[in-house]
């Protein structure tokens, strides 16, 4: 049978947003919120890319005076902070926010208002940093802002304060998103989707979210300590008063190293989904990949010191962290072999999403190998703060996360829009981006080995660095041009792309069982799952359950391990309170840079907003009259 039209209409009335601007502000539809997240992050990716191109332009010839040292410092600080805090982590969370309920066959996230709050707060962080840039108070000490340089003595003004508060904004947003994703995956899986049957993508998002929950408090704590050193004269990092700057580095990298994997692990989810679909073959070693992801997640917390080899820590510590850093290559390698085995066993189709995965394999392996090199304390001491490190982490982050993300964008674009992207222009963009990237960043390995330091605004002639810098700049230009083709393809395809239908790639997971684009309630019925590839195994009919309310927003809650139905949960509808709460938090964070009064006033405002948010809705009471024991 096919879904019933009457039920469809009732669901549409229940789940639609109010019209106009009000609907835009109050929506709690996970897809709309995630789309805003993704578009904002992609816009920032473009802006950060322009900054990178500007810096490359500056370095294309020796002794260039086009940029001042101060402007160069601001550029790499803004580029790094934007890419790591405002693009990489948020866009992965946004992908989870968009996809997780669809892949679960659920009607929304576990906490719809928390999702909306997360976006508005993230936007607050974005605006804080970039409005500060427009006002010429751009942070200028790198994406890490180490004290004592970032302390009150060496960094007067508000540049470092802006950076610290931007971090707090984005980390609170990330933590809210992570709790939301974690609980959604644990408690809203469809009947039958046991943990063993969960697609790798969901496992990846679950592990990345748990890692976020465990690591991000460190960066919030350390930036709060930094800003209190700056604004209220505490001495956490002041050596003269018993503080220690290495404490900053420990806390920063306790977050900073897992962050790399918080970005990379979701990408492994993209790769697993795309490789399976385009190989037309069940994922080889599903359990091995899941266990690898869990191992990587655990090991990532034991590696932070490898960012501090040059600090002068005890020798034993260096040895331990060298071993731990190299150990992570094992689960990462296992995953690669499983993906290759899947392709090998299947009948691969080389459409654009799959080509992005092949680009990922090549690039990420190079990044992984240079990672094994830098994991060695002895070699690391020679390479620290050279261009070799710049090359390494761009290979890991761009090759390991951004290429799969581009592939994921192409893969799920038809689901989101109902249109296919142009294959021809997709391949042109891919060739330019991947080719330009390798031309741009591979020479940086050589520049690093030749001794060129990073974070320098220029260099003297005659060092043997000129040609390699020119090649790197040319590669960056080609890559950016490819990026423009990619964006143009996405925009034009939105209106002119061929209609995709619900399942253009014949995927195996549940999101392909609903319309393209999916309706606000995602699915008319609750799917029932018997394997990790339900759409391949339940041909031609999808088994479903009925019985969720259609006249109010309701979702099914299941048990954590075996995903057995427990109860029907009333889901939150549109609300303005997440916007107001995010506004109140923003007022407190930004104003506290300038006056201590912002803290009590902001706290009161937040209290009002949260009271409005959590005040139980009338009509939810189900037992007993007032004052009577039920």
């Amino acid at each position, binding site marked *: *049978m*096919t879904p019933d039209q009457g039920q469809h209409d009732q669901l549409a009335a229940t789940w639609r947003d109010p019209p106009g601007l009000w609907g835009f502000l109050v929506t709690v539809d996970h897809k709309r919120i995630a789309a805003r997240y993704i578009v904002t992050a992609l816009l920032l990716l473009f802006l950060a890319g322009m900054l990178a191109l500007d810096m490359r332009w500056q370095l294309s010839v020796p002794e260039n005076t086009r940029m001042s040292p101060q402007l160069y410092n601001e550029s790499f600080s803004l580029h790094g902070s934007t890419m790591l805090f405002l693009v990489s982590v948020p866009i992965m969370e946004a992908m989870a926010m968009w996809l997780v309920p669809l892949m679960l066959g659920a009607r929304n996230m576990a906490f719809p208002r*928390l999702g909306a709050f997360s976006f508005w707060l993230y936007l607050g962080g974005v605006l804080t940093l970039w409005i500060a840039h427009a006002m010429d108070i751009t942070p200028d000490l790198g994406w890490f802002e180490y004290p004592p340089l970032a302390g009150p003595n060496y960094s007067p003004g508000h540049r470092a304060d802006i950076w610290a508060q931007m971090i707090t904004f984005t980390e609170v947003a990330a*933590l809210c998103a*992570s*709790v939301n994703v*974690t*609980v959604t995956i644990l408690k*809203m899986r469809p009947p039958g989707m046991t943990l063993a049957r969960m697609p790798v993508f969901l496992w990846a998002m679950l592990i990345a979210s748990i890692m976020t*929950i*465990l690591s*991000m408090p460190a960066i919030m*704590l350390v930036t709060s*300590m930094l800003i*209190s050193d700056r604004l*209220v*004269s*505490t*001495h*956490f990092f002041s050596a003269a*008063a*018993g*503080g*220690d700057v290495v404490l900053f580095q420990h*806390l920063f990298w*306790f977050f900073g190293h897992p962050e790399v994997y918080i970005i990379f692990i979701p990408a492994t989810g993209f790769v697993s989904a795309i490789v399976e679909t385009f190989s037309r073959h069940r994922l080889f070693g599903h359990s091995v990949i899941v266990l690898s992801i869990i191992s990587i997640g655990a090991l990532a917390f034991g590696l932070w010191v490898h960012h501090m080899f040059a600090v002068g820590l005890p020798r034993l510590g260096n040895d331990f962290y060298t071993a731990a850093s190299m150990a992570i290559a094992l689960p990462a390698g296992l995953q690669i072999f499983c993906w290759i085995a899947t392709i090998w066993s299947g009948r691969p189709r080389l459409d654009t999403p799959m080509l992005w995965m092949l680009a990922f394999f090549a690039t990420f392996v190079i990044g992984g190998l240079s990672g094994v090199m830098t994991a060695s304390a002895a070699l690391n001491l020679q390479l620290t703060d050279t261009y070799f490190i710049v090359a390494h982490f761009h290979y890991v982050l761009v090759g390991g996360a951004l290429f799969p993300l581009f592939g994921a964008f192409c893969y799920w674009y038809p689901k989101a829009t109902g249109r296919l992207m142009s294959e021809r222009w997709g391949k042109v963009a891919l060739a330019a981006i991947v080719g330009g990237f390798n031309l741009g960043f591979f020479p940086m390995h050589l520049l690093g080995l030749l001794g060129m330091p990073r974070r320098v605004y220029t260099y003297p002639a005659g060092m043997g660095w000129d040609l390699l810098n020119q090649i790197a700049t040319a590669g960056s230009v080609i890559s950016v041009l490819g990026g423009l083709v990619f964006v143009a393809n996405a925009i034009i395809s939105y209106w002119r792309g061929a209609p995709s*239908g*619900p*399942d*253009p790639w014949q995927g195996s997971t549940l999101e392909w069982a609903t319309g393209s684009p999916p309706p606000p309630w995602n699915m008319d*019925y609750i799917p*029932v799952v018997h394997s990790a590839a339900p759409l391949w195994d339940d041909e031609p*009919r*999808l*088994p*479903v*359950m*009925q019985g969720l309310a259609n006249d109010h927003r309701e979702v099914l*809650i299941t*048990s954590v391990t075996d995903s057995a*139905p*427990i*109860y*029907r*949960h*009333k889901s939150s509808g549109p609300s303005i309170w997440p916007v107001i709460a995010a506004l109140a938090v923003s007022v407190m964070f930004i104003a506290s840079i300038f006056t201590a009064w912002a803290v009590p006033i902001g706290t009161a405002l937040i*209290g009002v907003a949260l*009271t409005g948010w959590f*005040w*139980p809705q*009338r009509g*939810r*009471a*189900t*037992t*007993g009259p007032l*004052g*009577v*024991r*039920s």
Partner: protein
Amino acid sequence: MNSPREIEIVGNVADLPTSASGPRHLVWWGNIGFMVIEGTGFALAAAAYLYLMTQAAAWPPKGDQLPGLLWSGIFTALLLVSEVVAIWVLRRARAHDANGVRWGTLVMSLFGLALLVPRGFEFAHLGVSWHQDAYGSVVWLLLVLHTTHIVTELGECLVQTAWLFTHRIGDDQFCDVEDNCNYWTFVVLTWLPIYTLIYWAPRAI
């Protein structure tokens, strides 16, 4: 495959309840998530304290006094007593006892208010200001972090009390009371290691 997928109805969830309690409830998990976040924050702040302690020649540094034990002791005793109330309210919530949770949450609110008094004196008797040295900074950090949780919990209790006395209480609100009690327990449990660090670690070394 490009047309809407054919479905086969194999079951019905209409007979399921519309609420649950404890770990079966969705919000319980969200509450746990935020406790893990905040617990990690406390653990890292404690690690910062221990790190600075191991770097220092003396702890507290010369010139700083040891933190006073009187008001912190009163605060700790009061907090432990309040936990008994929280556990009682939790049980009343599980039993769906409307009057029990109303009056119990009111008593928890009063405990929240009362706790702020010895906490204020604790700040005054720490023997060091936050801007004196790193020791002072980290001690104040730990105490401010915990006080923030007391204030947050107090706010939640007050709002919940107001609601419980003015509305009919349903299954979801009993779950909310449960979650609030669990969070109260979290605030109590996090205090014990912090109390040990601030007041007893300097005396033990």
